[in-house]
């Protein structure tokens, strides 16, 4: 026991140091120049749902969803995301629930700059705040719908206030105590301004699990407008169309993927499968052979694809 303590003590001291340094770290807003985000911005089309007690999570999500074109009332959301035992909602519940309403939830980087960039781009941002202290937390969700840095103000839909005005630094302190958690919910046709390729595509892939293929297909197409060379988006588009039984569309997407990424075995394997489903055996076999030659972690699947194509074709050639 003593040995463990002795071994941990230096780490503990360093951790304490880390925490203290964290508290003393300057606010991001101190380094923010108002000229980076000129002019007041306010998204007036975001509706306001005054919240019942503790129901700020469902209310904030409902406002953002309504903006995204999915009309839903907080009362409908409440039983889905509100946890009576905790008198609140967890971030993961909000994310999962947003997905069930066919939008892409995207969690922002923990940066004030990114939050303001989203609002400037017209996207309301759901934020988690701790309105009290770290040791006596009072968690709260609100929606940032505008700002005016000249006047040192953020505009929030919060609680019972449709336009809650709060000084930037005060907001940042409450937001920092919630680890700068912020999220936008986007229609599949629209990208968050600050979106990065991999995290965005991961958010879309999560929608695949709910089999919302129309939405994922649209979102991958949107992603390709900003990242035309994204292999994931191109394959995702093909996979979504394949799931929708749009074999021609899937084939087209996989062909583009294979052309742009000639070293991707997955592109050729999926192309082979799609061609086989159209009974175009010769082309299918060529694509499957290409996948097998490229190899990689999915080589067993490629091998099975090729074997199945040869078997279905009539078994004229033995498997290599």
């Amino acid at each position, binding site marked *: 026991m003593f040995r463990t303590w002795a*071994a*941990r003590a*230096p*780490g503990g001291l*360093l*951790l304490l*140091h*880390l925490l203290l*340094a*964290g508290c*003393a*770290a*300057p606010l*991001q807003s101190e*380094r923010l120049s108002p000229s980076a985000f000129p002019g007041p911005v306010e998204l007036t089309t975001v509706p306001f749902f005054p919240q019942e007690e503790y129901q700020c999570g469902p209310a904030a999500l409902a406002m953002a969803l309504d903006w995204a074109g999915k009309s839903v009332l907080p009362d409908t959301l409440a039983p889905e995301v509100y946890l009576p035992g905790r008198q609140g909602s967890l971030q993961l519940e909000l994310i999962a629930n947003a997905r069930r309403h066919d939008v892409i939830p995207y969690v922002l*980087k*923990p*940066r004030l700059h990114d939050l303001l960039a989203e609002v400037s781009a017209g996207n309301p941002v759901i934020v988690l705040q701790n309105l009290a202290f770290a040791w006596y937390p009072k968690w709260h969700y609100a929606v940032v719908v505008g700002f005016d840095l000249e006047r040192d103000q953020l505009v929030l839909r919060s609680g019972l206030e449709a336009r809650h005005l709060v000084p930037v630094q005060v907001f940042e302190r409450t937001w920092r105590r919630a*680890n700068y958690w912020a999220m936008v919910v986007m229609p599949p046709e629209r990208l968050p301004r600050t979106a990065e390729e*991999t995290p965005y*595509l*991961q958010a879309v*892939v999560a929608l*695949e*699990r709910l089999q919302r293929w129309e939405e994922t297909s649209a979102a991958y197409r949107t992603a390709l407008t900003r990242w035309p060379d994204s*292999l*994931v988006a191109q*394959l*995702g588009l093909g*996979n979504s169309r*394949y799931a929708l039984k749009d074999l021609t569309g899937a084939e087209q997407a996989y062909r583009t993927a294979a052309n742009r990424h000639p070293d991707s075995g*997955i592109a050729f*394997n*999926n192309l082979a*499968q*799609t061609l086989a489903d159209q009974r175009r055996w010769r082309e299918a076999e060529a694509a499957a052979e290409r996948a097998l030659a490229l190899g990689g*972690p*999915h080589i*067993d*699947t490629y*091998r*099975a*694809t*090729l*074997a*199945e*194509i040869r078997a279905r074709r009539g078994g004229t050639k033995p498997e290599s």
Partner: protein
Amino acid sequence: MDKLRRLSKPVIHVVAVGVLALSVHLPPAHAAIVGTEAVVSAQQAMQDRSRVQDLLNRQDVKEQLLRAGADPRQVAARVDALSDEEVHQLAAKMDSLPAGGDALGVLLFVFVVLLITDILGLTDVFPFVKKPVRR
């Protein structure tokens, strides 16, 4: 009772043979579409790794490591040995560090030192670091 036992015997045989046949004939992999999730996970893992290695390749970080008595090359090798999930958690921790400002140097130093000492099994701050077994 005896009759029941005699009757049940052929049933058991049939079931046993059936189960065996199933397990023998199940192919090791199915011909299929490879899902998007596999592709995006691989991409994420690659980016996480290169971000952590980029950090370790920074000159100031290397200097701090040397000052702490750790060989940067050895540290990089240890990071290579972490699983994808562990590297992802590490990269996520890097995101949550405040960026810019004077605090960065201090934080970075403390963070890196803690990581290294964790890897070497001296501390236990990060639960995801594999600890060497002490005997």
